[in-house]
Structures are given as structure tokens and as C-alpha cells.
């Protein structure tokens, strides 16, 4: 059972304070939806949880161990940022091959894309895809399955209803396997998720 705890977290970006005394606890099997206005610090919070931002006040701990001191922490989460991490001049297949090398895991991409109805696009250049299709391919990274946390930054942007529901299903399945999901979103999601917080 994992417990991710955020205690008295405050963070400044330049001169402005974007996060002010945030306190949150999230346990295995839960999904936390972070909501807030543009510039309220949703992405900053995810980047703190992903150990990219290290200069902040307060404490973030996993099972009572500060994430800044936990050497194994970075191998436990999968971060999907707002950028798609795709090379426009390469085909989907080649992009996925490059991901396999970085993630050190070889997936059966054809089969997985078939499940998402994207298999017919596998040899198309990413540059020729719509934003929604790019987002779907970007979310394909969730199939790398050795992670205990998913940190998703605006994952529903550009997705149609079918793909939104498919992602919600994926998140629920991950929760059932005791995974923790923290996502930022400004759209009204079905009340299937466990926690919602406004920052």
C-alpha cells in the first residue's frame, strides 16, 4: 500500500507564489483530479511530484520517505506532460521504437494500437495526424506497465468522447490494480474518480 503525502507545500515561480500551503494525501487505488484556473499551479504541482522542481517549501513523501531522498522514486511513476513527446517527421512506428529504448521495455505496439483503433495509422508520419490522434498516441505511453503512479497533465485535451471514456476506463483499471493516478483537468469529468481538489 503506497501513501503519497503532500504537506504544507508552497512554491514560487519567479516573483509569484503559485502554490500556497497545499496539503493532500493519496493512497493506492485512488485518483486525484487537480482543478484550478490557468496559471494556478496545476502543472507546477505535477512537476514537483515528478521531482523536476526541487526548490519548494514543505514536504512531499512516499510512505513517509521524502521523494527527494528516495532514489527509486523516479522509476515508480509515468509522467505524461502536455507535450506529446512525438517527432513530427517520423512515423508512429518509429516514434514508438524510440520510446521502447528510453523506457527499456518492448511492447507489442501493433496489438495495443489495434485495441485503440489506431493500428491503421502506424506507418503515417506524426506530422500528418490531427491533435486528437497525436494525443491518443502520446497516451499510448501508459501501456508501459511497470509503474505504480501515473501523473497526467491535461490528458483529456483534444480527445473525443470515445477516447475520453476509454482513458477513464484505463484509469479505473489502473486504480483497481492499486495504482495511483494524479491528473490535472479543467473539464467536468464523471464522478467516477475518488478525489477532486481545487488549487
Amino acid at each position, binding site marked *: 500500500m503506497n501513501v503519497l503525502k503532500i504537506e504544507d507545500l508552497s512554491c514560487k515561480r519567479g516573483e509569484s507564489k503559485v502554490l500556497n500551503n497545499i496539503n493532500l494525501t493519496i493512497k493506492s487505488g485512488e485518483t486525484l483530479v487537480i482543478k484550478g484556473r490557468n496559471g494556478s499551479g496545476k502543472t507546477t504541482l505535477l*512537476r514537483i511530484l*515528478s*521531482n*523536476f*522542481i*526541487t*526548490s519548494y517549501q514543505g514536504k512531499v513523501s512516499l510512505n513517509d520517505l521524502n521523494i527527494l531522498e528516495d*532514489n527509486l522514486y*523516479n522509476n515508480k*511513476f509515468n*509522467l505524461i*506532460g*502536455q*507535450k*506529446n*513527446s*512525438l*517527432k*513530427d*517527421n*517520423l512515423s508512429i512506428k*518509429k516514434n514508438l*521504437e*524510440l*520510446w521502447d*529504448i*528510453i*523506457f*527499456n521495455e518492448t511492447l507489442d505496439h501493433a496489438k495495443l494500437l489495434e485495441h485503440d483503433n489506431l493500428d491503421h495509422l502506424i506507418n503515417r508520419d506524426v506530422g500528418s495526424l490531427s491533435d486528437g490522434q497525436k494525443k491518443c498516441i502520446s497516451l499510448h*505511453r501508459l501501456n508501459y506497465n511497470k509503474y505504480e503512479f501515473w501523473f497526467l497533465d491535461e490528458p483529456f485535451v483534444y480527445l473525443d468522447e470515445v477516447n475520453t471514456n476509454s482513458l477513464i476506463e484505463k484509469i479505473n483499471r489502473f486504480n483497481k490494480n492499486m495504482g495511483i493516478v494524479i491528473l490535472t483537468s479543467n473539464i467536468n469529468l464523471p464522478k467516477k474518480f475518488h478525489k477532486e481538489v481545487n488549487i
Partner: protein
Amino acid sequence: MLNLIKRDLLLSFYSSANFFFTVSFFVLILILIPFAFGTQSDQLKLLFKGVVWIALALSIIITVDRIYNADYEDGNLDIIMQKNRTIEYLVISKYVTHWFIYCLPLLVILPILSFLFYLDYLETIQIFINLFIGSFGMVFIANFVSALTLGAKRTIFLKAIIMIPLFVPFIIFGSDAGSWSILLGLSMLSFVISIYVTAYGLRLYGE
């Protein structure tokens, strides 16, 4: 680290046009010499020894955006940095791949170009050794400039203005035949400074 080297080599293989552009650019700069200064063999020899360094410097400058900026702009740098928390390993892998992809091809064609410019075997070997050693130092400099200007868009001119003065010692000593030891010293100094500054630049990006 080996994963990253493999990934960058595969990426360059998939976008092989970039590699041909750099080689063509290098050759074309050298080809300009006889057009500007005539075809007298003694003059060509002398000019080649200097201009080859200018061509190398410019070839490295035009590739500087491909070191970190391309991965930064499409978001791959986030994944790479997450999977490689020891940033120094990431930096070393970039040194290796950048040199291998963009400098090695230039060194491979150097002997052919040398003979076209009437250089004998001994002179060719001397230039080859100097360029081989000096190119590492120039790659180290290009890496830290790329990391420090990460996120700043369309700054190739700024990068060139920062890099050219730093390349000057390499160009001064590179033209001398027996100065490989000085170039080695310069390259080692560049490595020590570059690995620290590049890692700092990348950490700053993460913030």
C-alpha cells in the same frame, strides 16, 4: 546511458537527411576556397589548414539546436530526464552521439578533401589528429551552450555569438601541425567545464 546512445543513433539514422546536410555544408565551405583565392597549390594548402577549422566550427554551430532543443520542444527531454536521474550520464551520452553523428563523418571525408587541396600524407595525418582531438572540445562547448539556451527559441545567432569566441583557441592552435597536445589540453578543460555547466543548464530547465 547506453540506451540513450542507442536511441540518439537510431533517431539520427531515421532522420539521415540532417547528417548529409552537415557533411555537404562542410564540403561546400572548403570548396569555396579555390573560387575565392585561386588554384595555386601552395596557397590552397596554407588556406585549407585554417579554413578546415572554420568549416568544422560552422558545421558544429548549425547542429547545436539538435542536441537538446529538439527533444525539449517535443517533450521527449522530460521522459529522458526522468529515466536518467544522473544527468551527467545523459550529458556524456549526448557528447558521444553528437560527435559520432556530426563530427565523425567530417573526419572520414577529410583525407579525400586533403588530397584535393594538394596536402601530402604527413600533413593530412597531422590535420586529422588535430581535428580529431579538437572536435571533441568543440562538441563539449556546443553542448553546454545548447543546454544553457534551452527553451529560448530562434537563438541560433545568440548561440553562434557565444560559441565562436570559445572556438578561437582551437582554431589558433589547430592550424599548427605539432599542437595536438595543446588541443588535448583545451579539450580536457572544455570537458571539465562543459559537464558541470551542461548538467546545471539541464537542471535549470527541469525547474
